[in-house]
């Protein structure tokens, strides 16, 4: 394991030295497009001057991952790519489709896998992940991520209709994901109603019939197990 990691880091280094300093604006453009503000971020970023440093993309500074974890993530990501696109620069640009990401063993058994990928995807159609999105995902699910950011993303994953609050439909979909989607494994309608009533009774502090982010985080803060179970180890 360590051998391949160091080999990879050497490759990365060599790649950087050959290519010199590229424009990081290239990397910033994708998400900016996705959020409907074309080219805004790209225009502002300037190429960093001075000597070359390997941590030029600031992955370590901006995520909760260690260098080893980033290299490992890159390796796993490259394995999803076709052989001819596995060079470092290309792997940082290219997007991997949802199906391929979902085939990772770490996500395969997860009932929320599609939601997770959609939340972290920055492409306009929300159906593919770039390496940076993948790093974002791993960073949020890593050991060292703060409970705050974990609960924020958990909320977005559970918010199935992306409307910013957990309403009754979201909750029932969430419970179905937890108990299994099959007809025989679901809770009965009366049980579901009772359960959702109880959940709202317990966590909807302002009594507006839905759970918003702060109410959700309030509930999460009461469960110490959350941070340990909201983890994906690559």
């Amino acid at each position, binding site marked *: 394991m360590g051998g391949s990691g160091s080999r990879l880091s050497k490759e990365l280094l060599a790649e950087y030295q050959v290519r010199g300093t590229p424009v990081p604006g290239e*990397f910033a*453009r*994708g998400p*900016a497009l996705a*959020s409907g503000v074309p080219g805004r*971020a790209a225009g502002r*970023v*300037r190429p*960093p001057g001075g000597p070359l440093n390997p941590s030029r993309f*600031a992955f370590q*500074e*901006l995520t909760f991952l260690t*260098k*080893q974890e980033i290299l490992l993530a890159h390796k796993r990501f490259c394995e999803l790519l076709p052989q001819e696109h596995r060079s470092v620069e290309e792997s940082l640009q290219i997007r991997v489709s949802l199906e391929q990401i979902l085939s990772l*063993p*770490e996500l395969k*058994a*997860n*009932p929320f896998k599609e939601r997770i990928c959609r939340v972290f995807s920055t492409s306009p159609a929300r159906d593919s992940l770039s390496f*940076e*999105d993948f790093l*974002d995902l791993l960073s949020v699910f890593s050991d060292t991520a*703060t409970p705050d*950011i974990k609960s*924020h*993303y*958990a*909320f*977005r994953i559970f918010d199935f209709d*992306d*409307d*910013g*609050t957990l309403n009754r439909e979201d909750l029932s979909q969430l*419970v179905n994901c*937890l*108990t*299994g989607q099959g007809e025989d*494994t679901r*809770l009965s309608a009366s*049980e579901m109603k*009772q*359960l959702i009533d*109880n*959940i709202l009774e*317990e*966590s909807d*502090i*302002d*009594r*507006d*019939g839905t759970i*918003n982010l*702060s109410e959700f985080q309030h509930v*999460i803060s*009461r469960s*110490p197990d*959350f941070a*340990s*179970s909201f*983890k994906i180890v690559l």
Partner: protein
Amino acid sequence: MAQPLTFVLSVPETPEDHGPEPSPYDESEVHDSFYQLIQEQSQWVAEEGLELQQREPGPPETPGSGHQTLLGPEDPLVHSTATLRILASMPSRTIGRSRGAIISQYYNRTVRLRRRVSRPELRGVGRSARPSLRLYDLELDPVALEEEEKRFLLVKELQGLPVAQRDHVLRGMPLGLAEKRSLREESRTLTRKRRGRRGRRGLLPCCGRLRDACVLALHSLGLGLLSGLHALMPWRYALKRIGGQFGSSVLSYFLFLKTLLAFNALLLLPLLAFLVGVQAAFPPPASPGAVPAFTGLELLTGAGRFTHTVMYYGYYSNTTLNQPCVPPLDGGQCSREADGLPYNMPLAYLFTVGVAFFITCITLVYSMSHSFGESYRVGSTAGVHAVTVFCSWDHKVTQKRASRVQHDNIRTHLKELLAEWQLRQVPRSLCGRLRQVAVLGLVWLLCLGTALGCTVAVYAFSELMIKSPVSTEQEGALLALPTVVCVLNLGAPYLYRCLAALERHDSPVLEVYVAICRNLILKMVILGILCYHWLGRRVGVLKEQCWENFVGQELYRLMVLDFIFVLLDTLFGELVWRLISEKKLKREKPEFDIAGNVLELIYGQTLTWLGVLFSPLLPAIQIIKLLCLFYIKKTSLMANCQAPRRPWLASHMSTVFVSLLCFPSFLGAAVFLCYAVWQVRPSSTCGPFRTLDTMYEAGKVWVRRLEQAGPSVSWVPWIHRYLVENTFPVYLVSALLLAVIYLNIQVVKGQRRVMYLLKEQISNEGEDKIFLINKLHSVYERKERRAGRTQEAEQLAGDLDTW
């Protein structure tokens, strides 16, 4: 006049068909129109307030389009769709999805952070930014700012922070990586410019840059070391596999095992460095008599060939070893003294064991308090349904089968919770409750009786052993008492499990706690009687021999046999039982008994701590035992067990485990050792303390010698006289500790009260919000109707005109 109509139209018909992530601009449009609406409305209401007041007391006579009634909080689901739409676009709701809201929230946080830090660097922030900052207070008016401006302000704020803190803030932002990077780049480029401007001013920035460079280099060095450690982290894949297949609960057992390994390593290192290593380098003169040959039985009994080795207390000399002083724990004074004071073995023995124990104690208390802080929050009692639904999925699980099991577990748990909740609504009958109490009492009585029986058996057997002393030839007979103890330790928990099947507890957690409690009582009572047997009886009986060696060997035997019995238990309790239940009974695999296994670990650790004074190498043996146990348990788990069906509060449980390790186990061992050091007379034929009345005398002798040595080290005797021999400071410290604990409890109580009040207030605010929205709606309805009426009238007039 046309404004209300546009407002209604500007709201999207359904939030769903708005696309996955509605653009922030739409939201701010909604906010804008709502803001305008309120302003306009307030004027309007001021004009026609009279009419409104008349209508206010009663419910509106004509409920607008069928859903304009003012709704109480008890019926929150019947809000009109329009109300719900407005609610959905409120700032508190948009944080979850829009980038603009996130940026503005983090802007506010950064401002707060910066105000708190208030570093001198702030003076460098460009003047131009300040007034605009004051103008835009986002907390007052989040609607007025476009996302672009918010972003700009955030970048400005980020510049005010030191680099490390800025990275920290950026890392914690729920934004995409590219977005974070561009924010970082922007704030960095501006900082650099500013730095450049400041650089011209004088020499100081040069020093500052040097300092920064040093700090950065150190930081990156530390990071590198940390990541190196991370790469070295043992068992990463084994633990990942266990977590993936069995979930966090079983994982907690293996993590606990890892913690114990760390504790033992921490205990072993000083012992190895200052006792075993030194003594092995300067071996004492060989004891008279032939060295017994190695038979192989020693591995079980620990006696025979092993007796006169560094393993046991008896081997250590009571003299000072001719060695220049290592800067060790026997006081830093020695090297300063004339002719390089030699290594005083008794003192080193006492201090090393004491310091090693003290380090363990501090680590243990720290990890316990940390674990408590993690797992118990103020007011964390209510809300079990919500917590179960939101937090119960274990994302570590990677296997299809394990994921199915988890689905099943969660479903059963949810059903149980609902059933329990319904049961609580209907109180149980008096008769049923009486029967339950009776069964509970009976089972407890039986359990305590069993524990008492076991204790009496061990006591009787130990007395028997004393009466018929074992000759050196039949070493095997030494194993009799430990075997009995281990058999009782193994058998009684199974009996308890059968008894527990009789009583039906309301909650599974309570069941686990009760089981832990019973097993703990049994183990502690048996260990207690053994301690009495060693210190109270054996010391008197073994007059001429080395009783410390005997106790050390006895603990070694107990430990080894305990290991063997755990292996047997794994073999028969897990493997054979699995075969039987799969082949014959056609049932599923047995569950992994986490509580029982953890208690076994705690028991083994207690034995180690009890024996460390008499056999300094016992932690090493415990380390080997734990390493073996890890692989054996892992293999057995993978082959024979399935994940526990009960939901398991992993972090609460690990807190309980650490507290159990601290409270009865470590504290008991510490009391035992303190008694042995302060009260019991060491044997006169062996060991470092052979000439002294108690082991503690070694310290006293040393202090007396220091007193004679001169005034330069007079503070040591002074400390000894006033702090150790005088009991007053001990009382003072305990009283202070109690006071601190009491104050803490009171503070927590106060916080709970404040939390309750705040919650009440939030719920009131929510009601107010809905009330206001409904009010606005009803006002609009009427306005619309009036507009319609005037239009109609105009039309009518027009019609009349045409007529």
